[in-house]
């Protein structure tokens, strides 16, 4: 589309700006709310930032909100980070290896293995949450990082994506590597993984956000405050019993909780773009 008619241009921009506004407005409100006093916020959220920003953020980051049942936000952010990274890296490693096995090796029940993995696509955590909880409890993994992340690691989606990608890698490349004396694991490390770089970056972002935003599972398996994650922490603050929720502090926490995923997206974006520009043949 290289048409250059001013009216069309204006219409396009209006539509785009409207779209952006719809998406950004709630975030703006959250930010605005985090810069006022609790009283101002409770009597209807203002539309322009106030002057309480430093106070609110300092309180959230510093003392924490022990009064309303949440640990200091630094710890919660740290817990979320550990959980999200463990889930992301675990999922990527496992699905890379399993799709490598499925695509490149002829072993008995290979097809069955693939379909078994595929069927689990239909069983997200929420569906199998009770039996999973039971298993984790029996293994004594409640209130631990392992309990938070391991049950979420097995991933059909990523396995499936990598399988599709590996099947597009030309056979000639595999054969050239064999002639060059690369054994299976060497081929995997030196050729397959570097070729998957763009897919890896995309999956990293998606899975990190998936892990970061986990809510139900951390809520179930943690009773010890030192393992609370920030997403469930926000929820606990909002339901803090009798008292009026301190919306200004909750919103400050929410804004802070948004930052790591944003950082991951910005960091990985360079890889995406490079991957898109450098499309390999």
């Amino acid at each position, binding site marked *: 589309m290289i048409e250059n008619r001013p009216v069309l241009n204006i219409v396009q921009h209006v539509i785009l700006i409207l779209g952006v506004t719809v998406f950004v407005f709630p975030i703006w409100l959250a930010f605005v709310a985090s810069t006022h006093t609790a009283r101002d916020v409770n009597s209807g959220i203002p539309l322009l930032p106030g002057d309480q920003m430093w106070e609110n953020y300092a309180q959230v980051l510093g003392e924490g909100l022990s009064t309303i049942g949440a640990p200091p936000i630094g710890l919660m952010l740290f817990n979320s980070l550990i959980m999200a990274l463990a889930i992301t890296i675990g999922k990527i490693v496992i699905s890379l290896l399993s799709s490598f096995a499925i695509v490149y090796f002829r072993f008995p029940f290979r097809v069955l293995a693939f379909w078994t993995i595929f069927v689990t696509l239909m069983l997200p955590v929420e569906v199998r949450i009770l039996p999973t909880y039971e298993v984790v409890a029996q293994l004594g993994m409640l209130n631990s990082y392992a309990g938070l992340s391991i049950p979420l690691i097995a991933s059909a989606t990523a396995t499936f994506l990598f399988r599709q990608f590996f099947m597009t890698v*030309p056979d*000639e*490349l595999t*054969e*050239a*590597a*064999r*002639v*060059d*004396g*690369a054994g299976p694991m*060497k081929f995997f490390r*030196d*050729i397959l993984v*570097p*070729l998957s*770089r763009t897919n890896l970056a995309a999956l990293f972002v998606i899975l990190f956000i998936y892990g970061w935003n986990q809510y139900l599972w951390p809520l179930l398996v943690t009773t010890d405050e030192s393992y609370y994650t920030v997403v469930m922490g926000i929820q606990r603050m909002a339901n803090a019993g009798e008292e009026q929720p301190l919306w200004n502090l909750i919103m400050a926490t929410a804004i802070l909780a948004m930052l790591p995923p944003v950082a991951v997206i910005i960091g990985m974006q360079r890889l995406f773009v490079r991957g898109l520009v*450098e499309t*390999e*043949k």
Partner: protein
Amino acid sequence: MAQIEIENVRKVYPGGVEVIPDLSFDIAAGELCVLVGPSGCGKSTLLRMVAGLEPITGGEIRIAGRRVNELEPVERDISMVFQNYALYPHMSVYDNMAYGLRNRGEPKTTIDAAVRKAAKTLGLEDYLSRKPRQLSGGQRQRVAMGRAIVREPAAFLFDEPLSNLDAKLRVKTRVEIRDLQQRLGTTSIYVTHDQLEAMTLADQLVIMNAGRIEQAGPPLEIYERPASVFVGGFIGSPPMNFLPCFAGAGGVETATGQRLSGDSPAMGDVTAGVRPEDLTPDAAGPLPLHVRVVERLGATVHVHGVLEETETDLVASLPGSDAPNPGEVLRLAPNPGKLHYFSAETGRRLG
């Protein structure tokens, strides 16, 4: 001593398709052997069995006197140039060439010397740090060659390495490959279905058809004495003309009773073959050609037409000055001693 020996090799693909029933031939050290044949005749299959990329169902393949049936490709001391080059897209030209040596655990200095030497041989010195996608098709082809030669293997295997290049570059690269192969003296197998490539490159030409060898030998010998109708029609461009004939005591006559030659190779029905370039205009010639299309190539013209009465297609290749016009009838005679006779039943050569 033969460098590559292929003995009673058989290939059945899973599912029971027998692609190669039983095939034997030898390739002498330093020789370039071209496998040629129509699509699907099993050329790539045979090459891949030599390379170790495809299991061998039966028989034995020996490289430099060593049985390789059970060896991995890397242990066979061969290198291969693929049709689509199969360069590693994420590695630089240098790394593409060095990868095989690194996997063998050669010291860094040896690798560097080998890669630079190969790059120099192929004129790739300026491209060493580029990625394959930053190269033209011809340059990629040369990198693929470079990757093959750095390891100084006992044999090169080529599977249609020029088929992705344009016509001009193909001719140039063909000469380069031949030159390189002669300088290095490395035994090679080269698969193609381009008969011109086959004729120009080969020390030994192996013509395959449906998993069997139709004929093997030096290209000129095959050109001059094709062993069957199939070979006659496959080698040479435009292809050999075939005429159904009857051989009797008085000589060989065409279907319309015109005498082609005085002596008979056999008795009964035969197929006579004559190459387009072995026909000359002759007012008393036995072949009246009803001219349909005249292709002027400069030095020569190809005259396409049908023989009167029998409607057999015929092509004659004449000097450029003799061009007839479409619609004319041109009488042609085969040059003496240039007729080939084949059995009408089996298609094999007679005499």
